[in-house]
């Protein structure tokens, strides 16, 4: 925004008044800055008036408050949808690796090694992406300060941290012999279970919000992310040349994921029959295009990988299409959710159509939630 002097008559004002101030107007030599908001850091004294921008067409505004959003829109940046992709892929790879170790036997050893590396790399990259999004990245360890079952963000932090630890143990020790090797193989097995949760919790993370689209799709989102995670893990593994049993296993795993993801996407489009404004971002505009791109690319990936004899080239093409589809789907879900949060009518019409507290079979316990577990200091 503008940094032009606010005072139109500069020669009458001392120079310090010409600069836009943070508005606190407290001279530190005369007054104390000790209020509840005094520690709020200001780098931009004239922030963008985003709150004053209407998000509803003029003709529909009378139903709303000047078309202004009722909810805050998510503050998350591109790293979050990227994490949803990376975390899902890593989780699905860990699960496949653990299954190969437990049930597969020696023929799947190479596949299992690749899954191990993919799972660990994904956990590490995912952590970096999540920390990059924090407003205070240096405080990322506060995520493990409490264990809060009501918060999917808290549960996810624990799942990611434990999965990272298990996968690290598995990666470093899994191939050794003796007791250390046993610890490593336990790590791989635990990492597999945690990986399955890692791929699924991200759906709950988005669903457990006031964002109309995500809340309406609370049943479909975890299924979509699990399926899409399996598809991406399969696709990445297919990019490496493999043969025989592990090639067939990867293909089976990825195809199952693609089919599940497609089913969940089609279901998600119908998740708010009573209030079409909620799912409108999936149909119109840039978010609608992105969503359809995700749908078409995933379907194309499923068709291209097909059945029967597949050439390497066709396999790689299918893998590329699948990965692009999974990434497009995550970004589409993310930005469509943001759009539905900006649209006050999505909230109003959804709740008037019975999608607020009315659809609960049992209202939430009105007592404030009490967390008895100790806080780690």
């Amino acid at each position: 925004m503008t940094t032009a002097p606010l005072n139109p008559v500069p020669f009458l004002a001392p120079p310090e008044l010409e600069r836009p101030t943070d508005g606190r107007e407290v001279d530190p030599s005369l007054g104390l800055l000790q209020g509840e908001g005094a520690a709020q850091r200001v780098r931009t004294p004239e922030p963008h008036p985003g709150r004053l921008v209407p998000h509803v067409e003029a003709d529909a505004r009378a139903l709303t408050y000047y078309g202004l959003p009722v909810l805050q829109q998510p503050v998350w940046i591109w790293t979050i949808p990227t994490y949803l992709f990376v975390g899902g892929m890593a989780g699905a790879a860990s699960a496949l690796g653990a299954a190969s170790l437990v049930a597969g036997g020696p023929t799947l050893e190479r596949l299992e090694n690749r899954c191990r590396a993919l799972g660990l790399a994904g956990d590490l990259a995912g952590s970096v992406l999540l920390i990059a999004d924090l407003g205070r990245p240096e405080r990322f360890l506060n995520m493990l300060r409490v264990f809060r079952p009501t918060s999917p963000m808290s549960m996810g932090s624990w799942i990611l941290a434990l999965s990272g630890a298990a996968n690290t143990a598995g990666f470093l020790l899994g191939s050794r012999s003796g007791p250390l090797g046993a610890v490593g193989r336990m790590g791989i097995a635990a990492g597999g279970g945690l990986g399955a949760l890692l791929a699924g919790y991200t759906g709950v993370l988005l669903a457990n919000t006031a964002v109309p689209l995500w809340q309406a799709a609370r049943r479909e989102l975890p299924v979509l992310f699990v399926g899409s995670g399996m598809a991406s893990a399969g696709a990445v593994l297919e990019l490496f040349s493999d043969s025989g049993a592990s090639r067939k296993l990867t293909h089976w795993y990825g195809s199952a994921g693609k089919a599940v993801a497609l089913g969940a996407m089609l279901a998600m489009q119908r998740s708010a029959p009573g209030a079409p404004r909620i799912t409108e971002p999936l149909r119109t505009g840039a978010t609608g295009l992105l969503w359809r791109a995700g749908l078409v690319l995933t379907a194309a990936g499923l068709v291209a990988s097909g059945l029967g004899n597949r050439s390497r080239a066709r396999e790689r093409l299918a893998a590329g299409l699948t990965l692009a589809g999974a990434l497009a789907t995550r970004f589409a879900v993310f930005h469509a959710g943001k759009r539905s949060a900006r649209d006050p009518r999505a909230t109003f019409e959804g709740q008037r159509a019975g999608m607020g507290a009315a659809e609960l079979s049992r209202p939430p316990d009105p007592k404030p939630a009490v967390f008895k577990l100790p806080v780690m200091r």
Partner: protein
Amino acid sequence: MAAAKGFFTDTSLCIGCKACEVACKQWNQLPADGLHFSGNSYDNTGHLGASTWRHVAFVEQTLPEALGTVEPQGAGNGSSFGMRWLMESDVCKHCQRAGCLEACPTGAIVRTEFDSVYVQPDVCNGCGYCVVACPFGVIDRRDDDGRAWKCTLCYDRLADGLTPACAKHCPTESIQFGDVEELRIRAERRLDQLQARGVEGARLYGQDARNQPGTGGLNAFFLLLDRPEVYNLPPDPVVPTAKGRESWTFAGIAAAGMFLTAMAGALLARGRSLR
């Protein structure tokens, strides 16, 4: 624990002076929002935010426009000369089931001895999950600060036995502060009074769990003169956690499905390789 404290904001008394906005900014030493012109009546604030913990909404409508879509209910709801003016001072609701509190992964958001919901700025790491968890769009993360902020119910003033700054400065007692139990009784009495005078549109918003099951009732509740949407309040808000269990169930089933698919595939692959 002391008795639950809260606000009863009676919008039928609000004159739109914004003394609450100013008092809040001054007492809490909050930074300015910048000089922006919205063109929306006298509301250049727009919405609650990280640096705006009180916001006065101005609903200025010519009656045919208002009648066309959101029909003003009853007489006496702030209308005269073919116009209607509704004003409402919005604030954090300090819900019994607070979405932000239940979503906070760091434990930065706590419930105080006054039953209010408080964000500890020295703990918050700015993950932004409370921002999407609030069904009222109250709490927000300030970009250049990196942390989430909202009304504290003047926690520092309450600790010293003082009234929160906004209620103290309200010249018409539109914002009333006190024990929630007592405020509820006062609100019911005021509602009866208004209805007896023919203000049919008057209604309470969120005074208890019966009125607003999704949040278990608000410690800062309102008397409105029209439907909540008119004031940019959600008509049937719900704490997202109430629907989270269903989502977790589906995530659990999907995760189990993933693991079983992998196991079945691995067993089949082994079977083929043995043959």
